[in-house]
Protein backbone atom coordinates (compact mmCIF):
# COMPACT_ATOMS: atom_id res chain seq x y z
CA UNK A 1 0.00 0.00 0.00
CA UNK A 2 1.61 3.21 -1.15
CA UNK A 3 0.30 6.73 -1.20
CA UNK A 4 2.10 9.99 -1.63
CA UNK A 5 0.72 11.29 1.67
CA UNK A 6 2.03 8.28 3.49
CA UNK A 7 5.45 8.70 1.95
CA UNK A 8 5.60 12.38 2.90
CA UNK A 9 4.54 11.61 6.44
CA UNK A 10 7.03 8.77 6.72
CA UNK A 11 9.81 11.06 5.55
CA UNK A 12 8.87 13.80 7.99
CA UNK A 13 8.55 11.34 10.87
CA UNK A 14 11.95 9.91 9.92
CA UNK A 15 13.55 13.35 9.97
CA UNK A 16 12.05 14.07 13.40
CA UNK A 17 13.28 10.73 14.71
CA UNK A 18 16.67 11.37 13.11
CA UNK A 19 16.90 14.69 14.95
CA UNK A 20 16.44 12.86 18.21
CA UNK A 21 18.95 10.16 17.31
CA UNK A 22 21.40 12.92 16.46
CA UNK A 23 21.04 14.43 19.92
CA UNK A 24 21.82 11.09 21.52
CA UNK A 25 24.79 10.52 19.19
CA UNK A 26 26.39 13.97 19.45
CA UNK A 27 28.16 13.24 22.71
CA UNK A 28 29.62 10.05 21.34
CA UNK A 29 30.80 11.77 18.18
CA UNK A 30 32.86 14.03 20.41
CA UNK A 31 34.12 11.43 22.89
CA UNK A 32 34.58 8.51 20.52
CA UNK A 33 35.00 10.24 17.19
CA UNK A 34 37.21 13.09 18.22
CA UNK A 35 38.86 12.03 21.46
CA UNK A 36 39.09 8.33 20.64
CA UNK A 37 37.53 7.23 23.93
CA UNK A 38 35.11 4.38 23.39
CA UNK A 39 32.46 5.45 25.82
CA UNK A 40 29.89 2.72 25.36
CA UNK A 41 28.27 3.93 28.55
CA UNK A 42 27.05 7.03 26.71
CA UNK A 43 23.47 5.79 26.27
CA UNK A 44 23.43 4.97 29.98
CA UNK A 45 24.35 8.59 30.72
CA UNK A 46 21.49 9.63 28.46
CA UNK A 47 19.12 7.49 30.53
CA UNK A 48 20.52 9.06 33.67
CA UNK A 49 19.72 12.46 32.15
CA UNK A 50 16.22 11.24 31.38
CA UNK A 51 15.65 10.19 34.99
CA UNK A 52 16.87 13.55 36.25
CA UNK A 53 14.41 15.24 33.90
CA UNK A 54 11.74 12.92 35.29
CA UNK A 55 12.58 13.82 38.88
CA UNK A 56 12.57 17.55 38.24
CA UNK A 57 9.31 17.26 36.38
CA UNK A 58 7.70 15.11 39.05
CA UNK A 59 8.87 17.09 42.08
CA UNK A 60 8.83 20.67 40.93
CA UNK A 61 6.78 20.45 37.77
CA UNK A 62 9.66 21.91 35.79
CA UNK A 63 9.91 21.65 32.05
CA UNK A 64 12.06 18.62 31.12
CA UNK A 65 14.10 20.55 28.57
CA UNK A 66 14.84 23.28 31.08
CA UNK A 67 16.03 20.62 33.52
CA UNK A 68 18.23 19.17 30.79
CA UNK A 69 19.81 22.57 30.19
CA UNK A 70 20.33 23.19 33.90
CA UNK A 71 21.93 19.80 34.43
CA UNK A 72 24.27 19.96 31.45
CA UNK A 73 27.00 21.65 33.52
CA UNK A 74 26.60 19.01 36.22
CA UNK A 75 27.04 16.30 33.62
CA UNK A 76 29.97 18.24 32.26
CA UNK A 77 31.61 17.99 35.69
CA UNK A 78 30.80 14.27 35.88
CA UNK A 79 32.40 13.84 32.46
CA UNK A 80 35.54 15.67 33.55
CA UNK A 81 35.80 13.44 36.61
CA UNK A 82 35.17 10.30 34.57
CA UNK A 83 37.89 11.26 32.13
CA UNK A 84 40.31 11.82 35.02
CA UNK A 85 39.76 8.26 36.18
CA UNK A 86 39.98 6.95 32.67
CA UNK A 87 43.19 8.81 31.99
CA UNK A 88 44.96 7.70 35.15
CA UNK A 89 43.77 4.10 34.98
CA UNK A 90 44.06 3.40 31.25
CA UNK A 91 45.38 6.07 28.91
CA UNK A 92 48.49 6.74 30.90
CA UNK A 93 49.28 3.04 30.94
CA UNK A 94 48.44 2.67 27.26
CA UNK A 95 45.80 0.04 28.01
CA UNK A 96 42.78 1.94 26.85
CA UNK A 97 41.39 -0.31 24.13
CA UNK A 98 40.53 -3.53 25.91
CA UNK A 99 40.27 -2.45 29.53
CA UNK A 100 38.84 0.94 28.73
CA UNK A 101 35.99 -0.78 26.93
CA UNK A 102 35.41 -3.12 29.81
CA UNK A 103 35.53 -0.15 32.17
CA UNK A 104 32.76 1.70 30.37
CA UNK A 105 30.81 -1.51 30.01
CA UNK A 106 30.94 -1.84 33.79
CA UNK A 107 29.96 1.81 34.24
CA UNK A 108 26.98 1.29 31.96
CA UNK A 109 25.92 -1.68 34.00
CA UNK A 110 26.32 0.20 37.29
CA UNK A 111 24.25 3.17 36.12
CA UNK A 112 21.52 0.86 34.90
CA UNK A 113 21.35 -1.22 38.07
CA UNK A 114 21.57 1.83 40.32
CA UNK A 115 18.59 3.32 38.50
CA UNK A 116 16.69 0.06 38.89
CA UNK A 117 17.41 0.04 42.61
CA UNK A 118 16.28 3.64 42.91
CA UNK A 119 13.25 3.64 40.62
CA UNK A 120 12.39 0.04 39.81
CA UNK A 121 11.66 -1.09 36.30
CA UNK A 122 8.38 0.73 35.86
CA UNK A 123 8.08 3.03 32.89
CA UNK A 124 8.32 6.71 33.72
CA UNK A 125 7.17 9.64 31.69
CA UNK A 126 6.98 13.42 32.01
CA UNK A 127 4.23 15.99 31.65
CA UNK A 128 4.68 19.03 29.45
CA UNK A 129 2.35 21.26 27.51
CA UNK A 130 3.75 20.18 24.15
CA UNK A 131 3.27 16.46 24.73
CA UNK A 132 0.20 15.17 22.95
CA UNK A 133 -0.31 18.00 20.48
CA UNK A 134 -0.21 17.66 16.74
CA UNK A 135 0.38 20.08 13.88
CA UNK A 136 -1.36 19.62 10.61
CA UNK A 137 0.42 21.17 7.64
CA UNK A 138 -1.51 20.16 4.58
CA UNK A 139 -1.45 16.39 4.40
CA UNK A 140 1.42 16.17 6.88
CA UNK A 141 0.94 15.75 10.58
CA UNK A 142 3.75 16.38 13.03
CA UNK A 143 3.33 15.40 16.67
CA UNK A 144 4.75 18.23 18.78
CA UNK A 145 6.18 15.54 21.06
CA UNK A 146 8.53 14.71 18.16
CA UNK A 147 9.02 18.23 16.84
CA UNK A 148 10.18 19.88 20.07
CA UNK A 149 13.04 17.39 20.62
CA UNK A 150 13.96 17.79 16.96
CA UNK A 151 14.19 21.56 17.27
CA UNK A 152 16.14 21.40 20.54
CA UNK A 153 18.51 18.88 19.02
CA UNK A 154 19.20 21.13 16.03
CA UNK A 155 19.80 24.08 18.35
CA UNK A 156 22.21 21.99 20.43
CA UNK A 157 24.07 20.97 17.28
CA UNK A 158 24.45 24.54 16.10
CA UNK A 159 25.72 25.57 19.53
CA UNK A 160 28.26 22.78 19.83
CA UNK A 161 29.38 23.22 16.25
CA UNK A 162 29.95 26.94 16.72
CA UNK A 163 31.86 26.36 19.94
CA UNK A 164 34.10 23.68 18.48
CA UNK A 165 34.90 25.58 15.31
CA UNK A 166 35.25 29.08 16.77
CA UNK A 167 36.78 28.93 20.24
CA UNK A 168 40.37 28.08 21.00
CA UNK A 169 39.52 25.19 23.28
CA UNK A 170 37.03 23.92 20.74
CA UNK A 171 39.60 23.88 17.98
CA UNK A 172 42.06 22.26 20.30
CA UNK A 173 39.53 19.48 20.92
CA UNK A 174 39.24 18.93 17.20
CA UNK A 175 43.01 18.89 16.96
CA UNK A 176 43.78 16.62 19.88
CA UNK A 177 42.93 13.40 18.15
CA UNK A 178 44.85 14.33 15.05
CA UNK A 179 48.06 15.78 16.28
CA UNK A 180 48.90 15.70 19.91
CA UNK A 181 52.39 16.97 19.45
CA UNK A 182 51.36 20.08 17.54
CA UNK A 183 48.94 20.82 20.32
CA UNK A 184 51.65 20.58 22.93
CA UNK A 185 53.81 22.91 20.88
CA UNK A 186 50.97 25.41 21.05
CA UNK A 187 51.26 25.18 24.84
CA UNK A 188 47.92 23.45 25.25
CA UNK A 189 47.78 20.54 27.66
CA UNK A 190 46.19 17.65 25.76
CA UNK A 191 44.91 16.00 28.92
CA UNK A 192 43.12 19.17 29.96
CA UNK A 193 41.72 19.60 26.46
CA UNK A 194 40.48 16.04 26.32
CA UNK A 195 38.99 16.48 29.74
CA UNK A 196 36.92 19.43 28.53
CA UNK A 197 35.95 17.58 25.38
CA UNK A 198 34.80 14.55 27.33
CA UNK A 199 32.89 16.84 29.68
CA UNK A 200 31.04 18.39 26.75
CA UNK A 201 30.26 14.94 25.38
CA UNK A 202 28.69 13.82 28.66
CA UNK A 203 27.07 17.24 29.08
CA UNK A 204 25.02 16.70 25.94
CA UNK A 205 23.65 13.52 27.51
CA UNK A 206 21.69 15.53 30.09
CA UNK A 207 19.77 17.30 27.35
CA UNK A 208 19.49 14.22 25.13
CA UNK A 209 18.00 12.35 28.09
CA UNK A 210 15.36 15.04 28.55
CA UNK A 211 14.46 14.70 24.87
CA UNK A 212 14.27 10.91 25.19
CA UNK A 213 11.75 10.98 28.01
CA UNK A 214 9.61 13.48 26.10
CA UNK A 215 9.38 11.05 23.20
CA UNK A 216 8.81 7.76 24.99
CA UNK A 217 8.34 6.47 28.51
CA UNK A 218 11.59 5.05 29.82
CA UNK A 219 12.88 2.38 32.14
CA UNK A 220 16.50 1.87 33.21
CA UNK A 221 17.55 -0.62 30.54
CA UNK A 222 16.21 1.11 27.42
CA UNK A 223 19.64 2.68 27.00
CA UNK A 224 21.09 -0.58 25.75
CA UNK A 225 18.76 -0.52 22.80
CA UNK A 226 20.32 2.67 21.58
CA UNK A 227 23.94 1.53 21.81
CA UNK A 228 23.82 -0.01 18.36
CA UNK A 229 21.94 2.85 16.75
CA UNK A 230 24.18 5.47 18.28
CA UNK A 231 27.39 3.71 17.24
CA UNK A 232 25.94 3.08 13.80
CA UNK A 233 25.37 6.81 13.42
CA UNK A 234 28.78 7.82 14.72
CA UNK A 235 30.58 5.34 12.49
CA UNK A 236 28.41 6.09 9.49
CA UNK A 237 29.07 9.78 10.03
CA UNK A 238 32.78 9.28 9.73
CA UNK A 239 34.22 9.49 13.21
CA UNK A 240 34.15 12.96 14.66
CA UNK A 241 32.19 14.82 12.03
CA UNK A 242 29.45 16.91 13.64
CA UNK A 243 27.65 17.60 10.37
CA UNK A 244 28.07 13.97 9.40
CA UNK A 245 26.42 12.91 12.67
CA UNK A 246 23.32 14.94 11.85
CA UNK A 247 23.17 13.56 8.31
CA UNK A 248 23.78 9.96 9.37
CA UNK A 249 21.14 10.24 12.10
CA UNK A 250 18.66 11.53 9.52
CA UNK A 251 19.48 8.66 7.16
CA UNK A 252 18.91 6.13 9.91
CA UNK A 253 15.73 7.81 11.14
CA UNK A 254 14.26 8.01 7.64
CA UNK A 255 15.28 4.41 6.83
CA UNK A 256 13.60 3.15 9.99
CA UNK A 257 10.49 5.17 9.37
CA UNK A 258 10.18 4.03 5.76
CA UNK A 259 10.69 0.38 6.66
CA UNK A 260 8.23 0.78 9.50
CA UNK A 261 5.58 2.34 7.28
CA UNK A 262 5.91 0.36 4.09
CA UNK A 263 7.48 -2.92 4.94
CA UNK A 264 6.98 -3.99 8.51
CA UNK A 265 8.14 -2.35 11.70
CA UNK A 266 9.64 -5.50 13.10
CA UNK A 267 12.54 -5.23 10.65
CA UNK A 268 13.37 -1.64 11.56
CA UNK A 269 16.15 -2.43 14.06
CA UNK A 270 17.79 -4.84 11.68
CA UNK A 271 17.92 -2.01 9.13
CA UNK A 272 19.91 0.18 11.47
CA UNK A 273 22.35 -2.55 12.35
CA UNK A 274 22.55 -3.90 8.86
CA UNK A 275 23.62 -0.43 7.78
CA UNK A 276 26.22 -0.42 10.55
CA UNK A 277 27.62 -3.83 9.65
CA UNK A 278 27.82 -2.90 5.98
CA UNK A 279 29.43 0.43 6.81
CA UNK A 280 32.00 -1.31 9.00
CA UNK A 281 32.74 -3.89 6.35
CA UNK A 282 32.93 -1.69 3.30
CA UNK A 283 33.40 1.89 4.30
CA UNK A 284 34.84 2.03 7.81
CA UNK A 285 35.84 5.65 7.33
CA UNK A 286 32.15 6.57 7.11
CA UNK A 287 30.33 8.99 4.88
CA UNK A 288 32.17 12.08 5.98
CA UNK A 289 35.39 10.37 6.98
CA UNK A 290 38.74 11.47 5.79
Amino acid at each position, binding site marked *: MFTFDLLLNALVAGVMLGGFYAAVSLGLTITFGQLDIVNIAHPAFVILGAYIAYMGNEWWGMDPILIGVIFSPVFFAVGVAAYRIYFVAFEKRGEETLRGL*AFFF*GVMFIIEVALILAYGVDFRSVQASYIGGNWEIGPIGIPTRMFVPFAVSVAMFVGVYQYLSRSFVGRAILAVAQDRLALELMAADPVRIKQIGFGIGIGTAALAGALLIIIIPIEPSVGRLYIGQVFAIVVLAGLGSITGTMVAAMILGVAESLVSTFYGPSWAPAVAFGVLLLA*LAFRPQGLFGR
Partner: protein
Amino acid sequence: MTAAVKNRLFWGAVGAVVLVGFLLTTTDTGANPFWFFAGYFVLQYVVLATAWNIMGGYMGYVNFGSAGFFAIGAYSSVVLYNLMKAPLLLMIPVAGVVCALIGLATGYLTLRLRGVFFAIATLALAIVLETLMVNWEYVGGASGAYVLRPRTIEPFGDYVRYLFLVMLILATLAVVVARWIERSKLGRGLNAIRDDELAAECAGIPTLRLKLVATTVSGFLMGVAGAPFALYVGYVEPASAFNLAYAVNAIAMPMIGGTTMWAGPLVGALLLGTAQQVANVTISSELNLLIVGVVLVLFVTLAPEGIVGLVRKHLVRGRK
Protein backbone atom coordinates in the same frame (compact mmCIF):
# COMPACT_ATOMS: atom_id res chain seq x y z
CA MET B 1 58.72 -28.30 39.08
CA THR B 2 59.40 -28.93 35.47
CA ALA B 3 57.09 -28.22 32.57
CA ALA B 4 56.63 -31.94 31.96
CA VAL B 5 55.48 -32.53 35.52
CA LYS B 6 53.12 -29.57 35.31
CA ASN B 7 51.76 -30.95 32.13
CA ARG B 8 51.19 -34.34 33.69
CA LEU B 9 49.52 -32.67 36.66
CA PHE B 10 47.19 -30.76 34.35
CA TRP B 11 46.11 -33.84 32.47
CA GLY B 12 45.75 -35.70 35.73
CA ALA B 13 43.43 -32.98 36.97
CA VAL B 14 41.43 -33.07 33.73
CA GLY B 15 41.05 -36.83 34.03
CA ALA B 16 40.08 -36.58 37.68
CA VAL B 17 37.45 -33.91 37.02
CA VAL B 18 35.82 -35.93 34.26
CA LEU B 19 35.97 -39.14 36.29
CA VAL B 20 34.49 -37.55 39.39
CA GLY B 21 31.82 -35.95 37.26
CA PHE B 22 30.97 -39.30 35.73
CA LEU B 23 30.79 -41.02 39.11
CA LEU B 24 28.71 -38.22 40.60
CA THR B 25 26.16 -38.41 37.83
CA THR B 26 25.91 -42.17 37.48
CA THR B 27 25.90 -43.36 41.06
CA ASP B 28 23.02 -42.58 43.32
CA THR B 29 24.74 -40.59 46.04
CA GLY B 30 21.46 -39.07 47.12
CA ALA B 31 22.87 -35.81 45.83
CA ASN B 32 20.28 -33.14 45.41
CA PRO B 33 19.27 -32.35 41.80
CA PHE B 34 19.56 -28.68 42.68
CA TRP B 35 23.35 -28.97 42.80
CA PHE B 36 23.30 -30.25 39.25
CA PHE B 37 21.13 -27.33 38.12
CA ALA B 38 23.32 -24.79 39.87
CA GLY B 39 26.52 -26.51 38.80
CA TYR B 40 25.38 -26.61 35.21
CA PHE B 41 24.91 -22.86 35.23
CA VAL B 42 28.38 -22.19 36.59
CA LEU B 43 30.01 -24.61 34.15
CA GLN B 44 28.20 -23.01 31.26
CA TYR B 45 29.90 -19.76 32.22
CA VAL B 46 33.26 -21.50 32.32
CA VAL B 47 32.78 -22.38 28.65
CA LEU B 48 31.55 -18.92 27.70
CA ALA B 49 34.27 -17.07 29.60
CA THR B 50 37.00 -19.30 28.23
CA ALA B 51 35.67 -18.88 24.70
CA TRP B 52 35.53 -15.13 25.09
CA ASN B 53 39.06 -15.05 26.43
CA ILE B 54 40.53 -16.73 23.37
CA MET B 55 39.64 -13.61 21.45
CA GLY B 56 39.48 -10.99 24.19
CA GLY B 57 42.39 -12.07 26.32
CA TYR B 58 44.86 -13.63 23.92
CA MET B 59 44.17 -11.46 20.89
CA GLY B 60 42.83 -8.25 22.45
CA TYR B 61 39.61 -8.18 20.43
CA VAL B 62 36.57 -7.53 22.61
CA ASN B 63 33.43 -9.43 21.73
CA PHE B 64 30.27 -7.79 23.09
CA GLY B 65 28.10 -10.24 21.25
CA SER B 66 28.71 -13.40 23.30
CA ALA B 67 25.00 -13.56 24.05
CA GLY B 68 24.35 -13.69 20.30
CA PHE B 69 26.60 -16.70 19.78
CA PHE B 70 25.22 -18.40 22.88
CA ALA B 71 21.65 -17.85 21.70
CA ILE B 72 22.35 -19.12 18.20
CA GLY B 73 23.75 -22.24 19.82
CA ALA B 74 20.48 -22.64 21.71
CA TYR B 75 18.43 -21.89 18.60
CA SER B 76 20.23 -24.40 16.43
CA SER B 77 19.17 -26.96 19.04
CA VAL B 78 15.60 -25.74 18.69
CA VAL B 79 15.81 -26.23 14.91
CA LEU B 80 17.20 -29.73 15.30
CA TYR B 81 14.56 -30.54 17.84
CA ASN B 82 11.78 -29.29 15.57
CA LEU B 83 13.21 -31.12 12.59
CA MET B 84 13.90 -34.51 14.06
CA LYS B 85 13.87 -34.46 17.86
CA ALA B 86 17.63 -34.78 17.64
CA PRO B 87 19.55 -36.04 20.68
CA LEU B 88 21.77 -33.69 22.67
CA LEU B 89 24.96 -35.26 21.36
CA LEU B 90 24.00 -34.22 17.84
CA MET B 91 22.83 -30.75 18.89
CA ILE B 92 26.16 -29.82 20.40
CA PRO B 93 28.42 -30.28 17.36
CA VAL B 94 25.85 -28.73 15.03
CA ALA B 95 25.48 -25.67 17.27
CA GLY B 96 29.25 -25.46 17.45
CA VAL B 97 29.66 -25.56 13.69
CA VAL B 98 26.90 -23.01 13.06
CA CYS B 99 28.44 -20.58 15.53
CA ALA B 100 31.94 -21.26 14.21
CA LEU B 101 30.71 -20.26 10.76
CA ILE B 102 29.10 -17.11 12.13
CA GLY B 103 32.34 -16.35 13.95
CA LEU B 104 34.31 -16.88 10.75
CA ALA B 105 31.96 -14.66 8.74
CA THR B 106 32.04 -11.87 11.32
CA GLY B 107 35.78 -12.13 11.47
CA TYR B 108 36.08 -12.01 7.73
CA LEU B 109 33.86 -8.95 7.45
CA THR B 110 35.24 -6.93 10.29
CA LEU B 111 38.67 -8.04 11.37
CA ARG B 112 40.40 -5.77 8.94
CA LEU B 113 39.17 -2.99 11.19
CA ARG B 114 40.61 -1.62 14.36
CA GLY B 115 39.72 -3.57 17.48
CA VAL B 116 37.16 -1.03 18.62
CA PHE B 117 35.14 -1.34 15.43
CA PHE B 118 35.20 -5.06 15.81
CA ALA B 119 33.72 -4.68 19.30
CA ILE B 120 30.92 -2.49 18.01
CA ALA B 121 30.28 -4.82 15.12
CA THR B 122 29.79 -7.76 17.51
CA LEU B 123 27.30 -5.69 19.45
CA ALA B 124 25.37 -4.98 16.26
CA LEU B 125 25.65 -8.61 15.20
CA ALA B 126 23.94 -9.80 18.36
CA ILE B 127 21.03 -7.46 17.71
CA VAL B 128 20.73 -8.45 14.04
CA LEU B 129 20.70 -12.12 15.06
CA GLU B 130 18.06 -11.43 17.68
CA THR B 131 15.88 -9.62 15.13
CA LEU B 132 16.22 -12.59 12.78
CA MET B 133 15.13 -15.04 15.47
CA VAL B 134 12.22 -12.80 16.48
CA ASN B 135 10.98 -12.87 12.90
CA TRP B 136 11.61 -16.54 12.21
CA GLU B 137 8.37 -18.37 12.93
CA TYR B 138 9.87 -21.83 12.57
CA VAL B 139 11.77 -21.42 15.83
CA GLY B 140 8.80 -19.83 17.54
CA GLY B 141 9.57 -16.23 16.63
CA ALA B 142 8.90 -13.79 19.41
CA SER B 143 6.58 -16.19 21.21
CA GLY B 144 9.33 -18.71 21.85
CA ALA B 145 9.62 -22.45 21.30
CA TYR B 146 9.24 -25.40 23.63
CA VAL B 147 11.90 -28.08 23.71
CA LEU B 148 10.71 -30.94 25.87
CA ARG B 149 13.54 -32.81 27.46
CA PRO B 150 13.19 -36.50 28.24
CA ARG B 151 12.53 -37.20 31.90
CA THR B 152 15.29 -39.69 32.36
CA ILE B 153 18.21 -41.11 30.49
CA GLU B 154 20.26 -44.19 31.17
CA PRO B 155 22.54 -44.65 33.03
CA PHE B 156 22.18 -41.26 34.72
CA GLY B 157 18.58 -41.35 35.88
CA ASP B 158 17.42 -37.76 35.99
CA TYR B 159 18.13 -35.97 32.69
CA VAL B 160 19.60 -33.01 34.52
CA ARG B 161 22.47 -35.18 35.75
CA TYR B 162 23.24 -35.97 32.16
CA LEU B 163 23.13 -32.28 31.18
CA PHE B 164 25.48 -31.52 34.03
CA LEU B 165 27.98 -34.17 32.95
CA VAL B 166 27.85 -32.98 29.35
CA MET B 167 28.48 -29.40 30.41
CA LEU B 168 31.31 -30.52 32.67
CA ILE B 169 32.97 -32.26 29.75
CA LEU B 170 32.42 -29.23 27.52
CA ALA B 171 33.93 -26.96 30.16
CA THR B 172 36.94 -29.25 30.44
CA LEU B 173 37.24 -29.30 26.67
CA ALA B 174 37.12 -25.51 26.49
CA VAL B 175 39.85 -25.18 29.09
CA VAL B 176 42.01 -27.77 27.33
CA VAL B 177 41.61 -25.96 24.01
CA ALA B 178 42.41 -22.60 25.58
CA ARG B 179 45.50 -24.01 27.26
CA TRP B 180 46.62 -25.62 24.04
CA ILE B 181 46.19 -22.36 22.10
CA GLU B 182 48.00 -20.44 24.80
CA ARG B 183 51.05 -22.68 24.54
CA SER B 184 51.10 -23.12 20.79
CA LYS B 185 52.49 -20.97 18.03
CA LEU B 186 48.95 -19.79 17.42
CA GLY B 187 48.75 -18.35 20.92
CA ARG B 188 52.05 -16.54 20.59
CA GLY B 189 50.85 -15.12 17.28
CA LEU B 190 47.63 -13.92 18.91
CA ASN B 191 49.58 -12.32 21.73
CA ALA B 192 51.71 -10.53 19.18
CA ILE B 193 48.54 -9.17 17.56
CA ARG B 194 47.30 -7.97 20.92
CA ASP B 195 50.55 -6.22 21.75
CA ASP B 196 51.05 -4.52 18.40
CA GLU B 197 49.15 -5.62 15.36
CA LEU B 198 51.18 -3.63 12.89
CA ALA B 199 54.46 -4.90 14.24
CA ALA B 200 53.14 -8.47 14.15
CA GLU B 201 52.17 -8.05 10.54
CA CYS B 202 55.60 -6.65 9.71
CA ALA B 203 57.24 -9.57 11.48
CA GLY B 204 55.57 -11.88 9.00
CA ILE B 205 52.84 -13.22 11.24
CA PRO B 206 49.78 -14.08 9.12
CA THR B 207 47.56 -11.90 11.29
CA LEU B 208 44.34 -12.18 9.31
CA ARG B 209 44.51 -15.97 9.25
CA LEU B 210 45.27 -16.20 12.95
CA LYS B 211 42.43 -13.84 13.75
CA LEU B 212 40.03 -15.92 11.69
CA VAL B 213 41.11 -19.08 13.49
CA ALA B 214 40.53 -17.37 16.84
CA THR B 215 37.06 -16.05 15.96
CA THR B 216 36.08 -19.45 14.61
CA VAL B 217 37.26 -21.39 17.66
CA SER B 218 35.74 -18.86 20.02
CA GLY B 219 32.44 -18.93 18.12
CA PHE B 220 32.45 -22.72 18.16
CA LEU B 221 32.86 -22.89 21.93
CA MET B 222 30.16 -20.28 22.56
CA GLY B 223 27.73 -22.17 20.37
CA VAL B 224 28.54 -25.38 22.19
CA ALA B 225 27.79 -23.65 25.49
CA GLY B 226 24.38 -22.61 24.22
CA ALA B 227 23.34 -25.91 22.66
CA PRO B 228 22.15 -27.72 25.83
CA PHE B 229 20.45 -24.54 27.10
CA ALA B 230 17.32 -25.37 25.12
CA LEU B 231 16.97 -28.68 26.95
CA TYR B 232 17.99 -27.19 30.27
CA VAL B 233 15.30 -24.51 30.34
CA GLY B 234 12.77 -26.30 28.14
CA TYR B 235 11.54 -23.08 26.59
CA VAL B 236 13.57 -20.74 24.41
CA GLU B 237 12.52 -17.23 23.51
CA PRO B 238 14.66 -14.41 22.14
CA ALA B 239 14.69 -12.06 25.12
CA SER B 240 16.07 -14.65 27.50
CA ALA B 241 18.40 -16.41 25.07
CA PHE B 242 19.98 -13.10 24.03
CA ASN B 243 20.08 -11.91 27.63
CA LEU B 244 22.72 -9.25 28.21
CA ALA B 245 23.82 -11.10 31.35
CA TYR B 246 25.66 -13.61 29.15
CA ALA B 247 27.60 -10.85 27.42
CA VAL B 248 28.41 -9.08 30.67
CA ASN B 249 29.51 -12.22 32.43
CA ALA B 250 31.56 -13.44 29.49
CA ILE B 251 33.58 -10.24 29.77
CA ALA B 252 33.57 -9.77 33.53
CA MET B 253 34.65 -13.30 34.40
CA PRO B 254 37.94 -13.34 32.48
CA MET B 255 38.64 -9.73 33.48
CA ILE B 256 38.30 -10.67 37.13
CA GLY B 257 40.14 -13.94 36.85
CA GLY B 258 42.86 -12.67 34.55
CA THR B 259 42.91 -12.54 30.78
CA THR B 260 46.37 -13.72 29.88
CA MET B 261 46.08 -17.31 31.04
CA TRP B 262 43.65 -20.18 30.66
CA ALA B 263 43.17 -20.34 34.41
CA GLY B 264 41.90 -16.75 34.51
CA PRO B 265 38.45 -17.27 32.97
CA LEU B 266 38.16 -20.56 34.82
CA VAL B 267 38.74 -18.97 38.21
CA GLY B 268 36.64 -15.93 37.30
CA ALA B 269 33.71 -18.04 36.12
CA LEU B 270 33.82 -20.37 39.12
CA LEU B 271 33.93 -17.47 41.58
CA LEU B 272 31.50 -15.09 39.94
CA GLY B 273 29.20 -17.83 38.68
CA THR B 274 28.97 -19.45 42.10
CA ALA B 275 28.52 -16.09 43.78
CA GLN B 276 25.62 -15.34 41.45
CA GLN B 277 24.00 -18.70 42.09
CA VAL B 278 24.25 -18.13 45.82
CA ALA B 279 22.99 -14.56 45.51
CA ASN B 280 20.06 -15.82 43.43
CA VAL B 281 18.64 -17.70 46.35
CA THR B 282 19.82 -15.42 49.14
CA ILE B 283 19.95 -11.69 48.36
CA SER B 284 17.46 -11.90 45.53
CA SER B 285 17.78 -8.36 44.32
CA GLU B 286 19.47 -6.17 41.76
CA LEU B 287 22.23 -5.67 44.29
CA ASN B 288 23.59 -8.93 43.02
CA LEU B 289 23.97 -7.49 39.52
CA LEU B 290 25.37 -4.26 40.89
CA ILE B 291 28.11 -6.27 42.54
CA VAL B 292 29.13 -7.73 39.18
CA GLY B 293 29.39 -4.23 37.70
CA VAL B 294 31.32 -2.78 40.60
CA VAL B 295 33.69 -5.72 40.82
CA LEU B 296 34.35 -5.48 37.08
CA VAL B 297 35.12 -1.77 37.21
CA LEU B 298 37.34 -2.20 40.29
CA PHE B 299 39.29 -5.00 38.69
CA VAL B 300 39.91 -3.32 35.36
CA THR B 301 41.03 -0.10 37.02
CA LEU B 302 42.94 -1.44 40.01
CA ALA B 303 44.00 -4.98 39.17
CA PRO B 304 44.19 -5.31 35.40
CA GLU B 305 46.03 -8.61 35.72
CA GLY B 306 43.11 -10.27 37.49
CA ILE B 307 43.12 -12.73 40.37
CA VAL B 308 45.41 -15.23 38.66
CA GLY B 309 47.83 -12.43 37.82
CA LEU B 310 47.75 -11.14 41.38
CA VAL B 311 48.39 -14.56 42.84
CA ARG B 312 51.19 -15.17 40.43
CA LYS B 313 52.83 -11.82 41.13
CA HIS B 314 52.60 -12.53 44.82
CA LEU B 315 54.24 -15.93 44.33
CA VAL B 316 57.06 -14.56 42.21
CA ARG B 317 57.75 -11.94 44.83
CA GLY B 318 57.64 -14.60 47.54
CA ARG B 319 60.22 -16.69 45.75
CA LYS B 320 62.73 -13.87 45.44
